[in-house]
């Protein structure tokens, strides 16, 4: 029944299913958080805000990592023109990562964080309690082990096989991801140093090496669905990732304005991070250019929609909304307000959530033995979910931006009003954000339902 070119590509399927499952968990906790913003003691003290937020952000990271790994297992054999080095290792790592992830989330929810720190030996090597890196040190070590095994598996497939630009860029991004994660183990008492190197994980991931992964997956899907000349896509991919590094590395400086670092970072960070939208804009150009000059009509229209959407939403969320508050004189007032939250939501959805959904959308019909596309009925529903989730995210971002502008104005100018007074004044925006969040969730449910819709396969067309 399988319509795969290489049988070992099949290991991608459980990775994609896990990614979607954890995505659902992330959104449920997002809805809880949104409600806590307006209904302060909702679920208190059972699930305080900080616990729900940890679950929300950590699930995001983990499901994106599942998505990246699934993407690699799917596209690397095809690009390398050989079977995956060890499908068995891939399945072992899948279960290790899933169980470790589940145990960590259960730990967050079942015991107080301080207890979790104690029983997992945070005393020996304290790495916990920093934003996004809340995982117990043991879990972090587990992540490193899984990453090493994964990289070994992928490298052993790529190196003896055909080396395409997509393959090599993807591998570079994944190696960078693993190497930079090692800085999560460095946690000096000096708060300024702690923050300085914390960004080497967080910024150099999402505004650095992850862009290589994003670019490689996007290039692969565009080559497959539009049939445009690989040489042209390769050239674009090189230029995109070149611009990512040229702007993004020194762009790290936009996090070094107000944390006790030398003030020249204000100038450097402002200039280079103002250029960070460029690679995202080039991705949009690449996606629309490739689709416009397509040499074949791929029957999977949903994938093409997700791919173009990734370009646009990554540019808006990471590029435009990043630029809004990246210049030091602006950031002085907006730093640490809802403006940051607005940017974070649209950037993560547009750049990383959407690229993972793009590759899932492309690969799933093959993995499920449906041929090169799902039925029209399925695709129709999937495209509905695209519009619901994407438009909902636009509104989440707009409402948070509104909240952020008011917060900045009321709290940061002149003497300012106290934080909680301001929060109450802007609660209408939080209510509207929560409503948009519910629409997003409906879109997500529809997305999942789309996999189970019965439809006439012939309509989708087997190649």
């Amino acid at each position, binding site marked *: 029944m399988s319509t795969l070119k290489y049988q070992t590509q099949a290991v991608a399927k459980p990775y994609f299913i896990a990614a979607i499952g954890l995505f659902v968990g992330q959104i449920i906790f997002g809805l809880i958080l949104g409600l806590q913003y307006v*209904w*302060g003691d909702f679920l208190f*003290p059972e699930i305080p805000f900080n*616990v729900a937020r940890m679950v929300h952000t950590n699930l995001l990271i983990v499901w994106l990592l599942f998505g990246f790994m699934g993407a690699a297992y799917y596209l690397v054999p095809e690009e390398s023109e050989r079977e995956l080095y060890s499908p068995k290792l891939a399945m072992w790592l899948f279960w290790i990562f899933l169980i470790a992830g589940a145990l960590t989330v259960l730990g967050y929810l079942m015991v107080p964080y301080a207890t979790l720190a104690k029983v997992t030996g945070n005393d020996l090597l304290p790495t916990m309690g920093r934003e996004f890196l809340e995982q117990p040190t043991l879990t972090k070590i587990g992540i490193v082990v899984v990453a090493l095994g994964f990289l070994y598996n992928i490298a052993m497939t790529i190196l003896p096989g055909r080396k395409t630009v997509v393959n090599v860029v993807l591998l570079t991004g994944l190696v960078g991801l693993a190497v930079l994660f090692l800085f999560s183990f460095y946690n000096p008492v000096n708060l300024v140093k702690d923050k300085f190197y914390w960004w080497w994980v967080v910024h150099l991931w999402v505004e650095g090496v992850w862009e290589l992964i994003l670019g490689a997956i996007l290039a692969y899907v565009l080559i497959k669905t539009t049939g445009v000349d690989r040489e042209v896509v390769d050239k674009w991919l090189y230029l995109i990732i070149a611009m990512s590094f040229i702007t993004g590395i020194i762009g790290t400086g936009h996090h070094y304005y*107000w944390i*006790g670092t030398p003030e020249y970072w204000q100038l450097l960070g402002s200039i280079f991070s103002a250029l960070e939208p460029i690679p995202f804009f080039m991705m949009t150009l690449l996606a629309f250019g490739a689709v416009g000059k397509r040499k074949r009509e791929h029957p999977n229209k949903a994938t093409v929609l997700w791919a173009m959407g990734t370009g646009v939403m990554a540019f808006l969320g990471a590029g435009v909304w990043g630029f809004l508050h990246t210049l030091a004189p602006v950031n*002085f007032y907006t*730093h*640490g307000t809802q403006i940051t939250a607005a940017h974070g939501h649209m950037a993560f959805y547009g750049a990383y959530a959407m690229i993972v959904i793009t590759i899932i959308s492309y690969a799933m019909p093959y993995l499920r033995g449906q041929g090169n596309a799902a039925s029209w009925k399925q695709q129709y529903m999937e495209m509905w979910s695209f519009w619901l989730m994407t438009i909902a995210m636009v509104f989440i971002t707009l409402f948070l931006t509104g909240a952020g502008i008011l917060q900045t104005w009321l709290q940061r100018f002149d003497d300012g009003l106290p*934080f909680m007074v301001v929060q109450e004044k802007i609660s209408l925006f939080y209510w509207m954000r929560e409503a948009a969040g519910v629409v997003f969730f409906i879109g997500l449910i529809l997305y999942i339902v789309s996999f189970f819709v019965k439809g006439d396969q012939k309509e989708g067309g087997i190649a």
Partner: protein
Amino acid sequence: MSEVFSKSMARNIYFGGSLFFVLLFLSLTWHTNRELPKTDNRQAITEEVALGKKVWEENNCVGCHSLLGEGAYFAPELGNVYKRFGNSKEAIKAFLKSRPVNGIPGRRSMPQFNLTEEELDAIAEFLKYSSEIDAAGWPPNIQG
């Protein structure tokens, strides 16, 4: 793109550009580390501050609050809370101690962490140390 601009040229821009900016970033990192003693208030770091940072981390304070603007935006900025509380460690301790276990009905509530007297002293000392880091004049006012 035309043949004038070849794939190998694009690749060279990627390799050359990346190498240059990685090296520049590493040099700036080296220089920043040399300059940090002027601003990072390291002379105030004591064993008590170190314990305070650990208490901060092991209770996931950053899951609701921000510290020098980084963290969550659900609860007030704490980088300058020592100053906002009238340069008083006692006020910080009293606030932490008086959090009701079941929260305040209908309002955002901070959990009761049941910290020991030693931990309370340490967290207050850590927040005092944080407030004295030279953060280029941020935040704009005392509200954080």
